[in-house]
């Protein structure tokens, strides 16, 4: 590629870079109970919102894995314990195939871990609850947006 073409291509990427995507998002389904995804246009992938608990999200993802979807992001994303944050967002594949044992193993381990923490579920936010919820929501949101960026590379 000569220099002029390179400069033009770079400029086009710069102009359209934010709007363009690889299109790989359409192969993803986001399962979430984080209300931030209801009000935000990002990410541009199918989103299944449930008005449930952190554990409810894990269980729904497990059910989808039994139906042949693959797990694409780690269910325990974020160094925030399941008995602290109420929000969880997980990516799975849109297409289905045979039961993926690796996905099943990870989601089952994650449910066990969640249950372990919930045995003693003293929760955050007796004071200042709204501010904490907004922060938990923001961190969960940002982590999954970073994962979608990885998926879109």
């Amino acid at each position: 590629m000569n220099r002029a073409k390179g400069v033009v291509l770079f400029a086009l990427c710069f102009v359209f870079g934010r709007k363009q995507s690889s299109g790989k998002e359409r192969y993803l389904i986001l399962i979430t109970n984080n209300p931030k995804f209801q009000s935000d246009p990002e990410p541009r992938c199918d989103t299944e919102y449930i008005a449930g608990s952190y554990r409810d999200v894990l269980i729904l993802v497990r059910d989808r894995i039994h139906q042949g979807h693959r797990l694409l992001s780690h269910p325990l994303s974020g160094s925030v314990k399941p008995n602290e944050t109420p929000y969880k967002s997980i990516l799975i594949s849109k297409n289905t195939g045979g039961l993926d044992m690796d996905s099943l193993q990870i989601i089952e381990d994650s449910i066990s871990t969640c249950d372990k923490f919930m045995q003693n579920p003293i929760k955050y936010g007796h004071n200042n609850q709204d501010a904490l919820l907004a922060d938990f929501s923001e961190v969960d949101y940002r982590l999954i947006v970073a994962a979608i960026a990885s998926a879109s590379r």
Partner: protein
Amino acid sequence: MKLELGNIFIHDIQFDDLSRVENGVLYINEEELREHLLEDENISSVSFDIAKPGESVRIMPVKDVIEPRVKVEGRGGVFPGVISKVDTVGSGRTNVLKGAAVVTTGTIVGFQEGIIDMSGPGADYTPFSKLNNLVVICEPVEGLKQHAHEKAVRFAGLKAAAYLGRLAKDLEADEVESFETPSLIESFRQYPDLPRVAYVQMLQTQGLLHDTYVYGVDMKQSITTMLYPTELMDGAIISGNCVSACDKNTTYHHLNNPVIRDLYARHGKELNFVGMIITNENVYLADKERSSDWSAKLAEFLGVDGVIISQEGFGNPDTDLIMNCKKIEAKGIKTVIITDEYAGRDGASQSLADADISANAVVTGGNANMVVNLPPMEKVIGHVKLADTIAGGFDGSLQPDGSIVVELQAITGATNELGFNRLSAR
């Protein structure tokens, strides 16, 4: 690559009209440093405090801890790609203000942990209680989003540490340590009969408030790669990590990584420490597969007999840890993993979120769910308001007398997975 560390021992910090180091005392001109940090338009105010070992002082919430250093000889400057221009560091001479640290505090998110008690039982759990700490308290401009706030406080800490480090530029060191990693072929020639060992360091890279930077590059966007261990001693790796105080690696940890130091101490005697691999802990599962594939591939390429793998954080990174362990063992290379545990308050539950039979040599930094009682302190530095959040905020409660019942997770460095801890079960 060879690096000498010139340690200048600091036994006190004081505010004064002129910033300087004299007779082991670090004097700081507050106004000059404040002006320097306020150059960042995202910071509305900066104040400072000093916390010394043994004082009845609590610092919270701690974001990062940074050791002041300065390049005296050799290429580049400290914190390359961030504070200094990009250049390969890790060779020549670096002076260190040993015994001093910059501690940054700022409430970036409401649930943020990070307690350093300078005395009492809490002090035993954090190595930073033994340092003379300059605490930098940054307030953001109105409406600054969390990710920009994190960055502003991260840079303020690094700039403060670099400012203090420059005071040591022309000083004579009290002690000089030397660390050297020759080329692979040279080390094999030197020690043909010693077992070859590499270090695999996992870096926290999940996203917002969970990031690590290598030469200024966000490590979650990198594939697994290699560094000379001495590059870390010049600040090639810095922390952008705000959560899970007990097992996150602060920048101080990276500068003083004890796995690297212990491997160097045994190099040429019991083993041949050939170098280190750095890898990430991303949320996206395909990234985990790719990065752990590369860890195993690079370990094989280095021709090592064994590796030490250290983790950062918990939960999601447990999966990366086990992937690295399994894949490296599958190459016929022995592994020892360093982790910590979330085994419930009684310690009886499963410790990790993942496991494998190949993870048969494990070192633990401790149980982060263990509950400790931190007695009241006469002074709290940082965001005192956070005590209100801690009342219900942490997995415990603020007692009427001002003491805090809290899990070890809240104490900075308490179960560090590099083994940078003061307590052990030995």
